[in-house]
């Protein structure tokens, strides 16, 4: 009898396609929603809850809503349940969009928006070339142009001065968010690099800056910038109230951004620094070409999180008497002509939809960017 022989494969097994996956709606339902008694109960309860919440909302906003009219009369005294009072929004739309920006000058705001959109859209679509020129126009030239257009002060070419205390509504919300966003990211990057620097004084100053701004509430910052700062600064240093708030918000958001970016920097292995250093790329080139592109990509979710938080935090400027979208809305509630049971809910629903739409757009675009930048491995 011969012992167990060594195994030698005679022919190699060729690759086969994977077995057909069972699919279809029913299977998906069974696997995801009804994979057991407990899960089935959960599914039914969740659907019931959703319906219970969704149905009254839809009824209020759409079905029972009043769509036309010119005063509160349209929204009160009708039979049936109370619905949203949309004429209120229509009547106040100009204020929500521009505040009390002079009516004859509102085209300047529209033009600013238009230029913004024209510059932003090609920047967001990856296929469109000239990204560097485009980015320069949007992030550097556009703010200056927008400033000239919105503030004005050139009677002779038809751009009279419009004081910022007349600005309001969505205009203020967008100005503060936009400046906060494009100011806080570079500031945050510099602070994060500073905090990881080998130079002790740079590091110390960055740490002090970050910890200071993270340690005080935004409301305090706004109060200080608006009411206290003028006492400390000499009489001739009159800074516009909106500009003071802008600077406060930017520095505040920059400190948060710095910590987000620092997290990304910490995730880059030391070998990347060494590889780049050995090639003779100095500190800044190493950072710009090797480290930051990787680090920022890692923290896109965190960066966008900060952007969205900043966007919604702009509503706090109401407490220093700057009327952003939400502030303008509340001013509208005080109007005797529009006091109805539904005004408050209609107004907040309207503001909620706008804030949600913008935040959600930012979030989805960030997700798209994240997937686009994912390196194949």
């Amino acid at each position, binding site marked *: 009898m011969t012992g167990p022989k060594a195994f030698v494969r005679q022919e190699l097994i060729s690759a086969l396609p994977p077995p057909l996956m069972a699919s279809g709606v029913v299977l998906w339902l069974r696997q995801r929603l009804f994979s057991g008694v407990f899960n089935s109960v959960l599914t039914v309860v969740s659907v019931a809850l959703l319906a219970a919440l969704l149905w009254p909302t839809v009824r209020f906003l759409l079905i029972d809503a009043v769509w036309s009219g010119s005063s509160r009369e349209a929204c009160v005294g009708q039979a049936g349940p109370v619905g949203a009072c949309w004429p209120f929004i229509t009547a106040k739309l100009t204020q929500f969009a521009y505040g009390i920006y002079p009516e004859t000058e509102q085209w300047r705001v529209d033009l600013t928006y238009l230029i913004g959109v024209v510059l932003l859209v090609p920047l967001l679509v990856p296929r469109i070339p000239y990204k560097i020129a485009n980015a320069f126009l949007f992030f550097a030239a556009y703010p200056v142009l927008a400033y000239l257009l919105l503030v004005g002060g050139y009677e002779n070419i038809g751009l009279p001065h419009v004081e910022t205390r007349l600005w309001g509504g969505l205009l203020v919300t967008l100005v503060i968010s936009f400046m906060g966003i494009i100011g806080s990211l570079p500031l945050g990057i510099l602070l994060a690099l500073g905090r990881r620097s080998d130079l002790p004084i740079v590091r110390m100053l960055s740490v002090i800056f970050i910890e200071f701004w993270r340690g005080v509430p935004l409301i305090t910052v706004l109060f200080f910038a608006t009411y206290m700062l003028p006492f400390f600064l000499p009489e001739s240093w009159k800074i516009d109230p909106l500009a003071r708030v802008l600077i406060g918000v930017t520095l505040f958001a920059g400190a948060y951004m710095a910590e987000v970016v620092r997290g990304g920097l910490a995730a880059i292995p030391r*070998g*990347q620094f*060494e*590889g*780049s*250093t*050995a*090639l*003779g*790329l*100095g500190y800044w*080139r190493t950072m710009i*070409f*090797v480290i930051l*592109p*990787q680090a920022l*990509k890692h923290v896109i979710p965190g960066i966008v999180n900060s952007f969205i938080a900043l966007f919604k935090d702009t509503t706090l400027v109401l407490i220093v008497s700057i009327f952003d979208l939400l502030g303008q809305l509340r001013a509208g509630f005080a109007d005797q002509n529009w006091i109805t049971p539904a005004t408050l809910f209609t107004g907040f629903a309207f503001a909620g939809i706008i804030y949600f739409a913008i935040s959600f757009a930012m979030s989805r675009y960030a997700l798209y960017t994240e997937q686009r930048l994912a*390196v*194949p*491995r």
Partner: protein
Amino acid sequence: MNEKPSSKAAPAGARDIRTTRNEVAVDIDTVNKWYGQFHVLRDVSLKIMRGERIVICGPSGSGKSTLIRCINRIENWQQGRIIVDGTELTDNLKAIDEVRREVGMVFQHFNLFPHLTVLQNCTLAPIWVRHSPKRDAEALARHYLERVRIPEQADKYPGQLSGGQQQRVAIARALCMEPKIMLFDEPTSALDPEMVKEVLDTMVSLANDGMTMLVVSHEMGFARQVASRMVLMDAGQIVEVSEPASFFSAPQHERTKLFLSQILR
């Protein structure tokens, strides 16, 4: 070959050979380095002539990687001098940049930039450090990728390549700066056994072209084939320096004998 007396004893007189300065590629002169209290490099002196291939071996923790990382100042040291191609490495950043342009380095873990394609990895430094036009840099990169026999991978990302291919890209990337001296820090240690040969072959062909090379490696077959001199380090010091023939057949120091007996079983 460039035969040099062993600098084991680091004779004081060896330093003033200023006439042959151009022949000396790297002059390491009584370098001492500490990590905190730990004395990693102890009185290390070594003179590497142009065109020489030095293979440094020794047990782990003996300071061999630290030593070659000092040559392009990725690591700093506390005492002693290192002169690379006539430029002394001091705290002067200009001198350091100058040396780094002339010295290429290949790492154990490749350290390729994962967010850039192979071609971009190779052109980054020529474009931004040497200020070559993009077209020239790309032509040069393709030339060296050809040289390491992976021209077809130019547009892939490092993560899509095998370890051996990545290491060859790393060699090409270093060569794109047209360095006078190449440092290899355990270039095959992180590779699967089947990929070691392709990297070593690339290094052999580089050696045959007369490149000055400092290689930290335990690939003794490679060492026998290309080394002009072998260096054995232990506990932060150079224990033995000799030609490969005598190094392998008649090691002088006890530590060398022990080391060789352990790795050449």
